C-alpha cells in the first residue's frame, strides 16, 4: 500500500493563536501548522492566501510545519 507523501503544498486559510496557521491542502484536507524556525527567523510574514510548502507530521496527520512560502 502506498504511503501519502509527507511534504505537501497548501494555502494559508487563517492565522491561529501561538504562531499557528490553518492550512488548506490541495487534497481539500485542512491541517494546523506552525512556521518552521528558519521561516520565522527570516521575519517572513505569512498571510491568508499565501501558498506554502508544508511537512505533514507522520504521527499526527492534522499537524504540520511550514517550511517555505511559495508565492
Amino acid at each position, binding site marked *: *500500500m*502506498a*504511503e*501519502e*507523501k*509527507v511534504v*505537501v503544498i497548501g494555502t494559508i486559510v487563517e492565522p491561529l493563536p501561538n504562531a499557528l496557521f490553518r492550512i488548506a491542502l490541495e*487534497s*481539500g484536507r485542512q491541517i494546523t501548522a506552525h512556521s518552521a524556525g528558519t521561516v520565522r527567523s527570516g521575519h517572513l510574514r505569512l498571510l491568508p492566501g499565501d501558498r506554502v510548502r508544508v511537512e505533514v507530521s507522520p504521527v499526527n496527520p492534522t499537524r504540520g510545519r511550514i517550511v517555505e512560502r511559495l508565492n
Partner: protein
Amino acid sequence: MITVKSETELQLMRDAGKMLAEVLDELEGECRPGTTTGEIDAAADRLIRSRGAIPGFKGYNGFPKSLCISVNEEVVHGIPGKRVIDDGDLVSLDCGLIYRGMWADSGRTVLVGEVTPEARKLVDVTKRALHAGIEQARPGNRVGDISAAVQKVVEGAGFSVVRNFVGHGIGRNMHEEPQVPNFGVAGTGPLLRAGYALAIEPMVNAGTADVEMLPDRWTIITADGKLSAYFEHTVLITDGGPVVATAA
C-alpha cells in the same frame, strides 16, 4: 530512523516475499472479465491465510479488505467490492502480508483481454521504471538515486509520475522510514545501507500527474480520468546488490 534488519529478519522477509509473489500470481489468473473485485479479495484472503500468513491490509488505518484493487483511472487504494472486471481493463492489484512478524508488500497491473496499445505501453514503462529504481537500491546510493531513475524512465516515455503517494521503508511495519518518492534528484535523500528494506512502487499516469480522492476516503483516481498503472516490489538492500523479496 531507518532500521537495519537482522539476517533472520531478512530471511523471513524473503520467505514472506516469495509467499506474496505466489499469491499475486494466482490472483492475476483470477482477473478475468466477469469476475468481481470482491471475489478477487476473497481469494487473496484465503490464499494468504492458507499459507500461515496474515493479510496485512485488512484493518490497516481502517482499510476494510485484504488487498487494494484499482481499475483503469483508479491509481491506488481501490476498495474491492461489486465492481465487475471487463475486457480491456487495467487492473492493479496491491497486496501485503505479514509472515512471522515481517511484512511483504507488492503489486502489479494486469492487462485484461484486449487492451489498447497505449495501455500496454503504460504498463510496460511502469514495469521498466520499477526495475530502473531497483537497480539503484544498493548500499552507498541514496533514496534520490532510486527516485530519479524511476522518474527518468516514466517521463522519458511521455507519462507522468504521481507525486502524492510514495514508496516506503518496510519491515516489522508496513510503512517505515524512509519515504521513497518516484521523482527526485540523484544524490539526494537518505543514504542506503545493507540491511535496509524498501517497498519501491512507481505509480504512473498516462495524462496529468494530478490525482483526487473519492468520497470513500481511500480510492485515488487520476484528475483527468486517464489510465494509471502501478508495480511494486519489496527490495532488500544487501552488499551483493538489491534482493527482490517479492520476485515472481
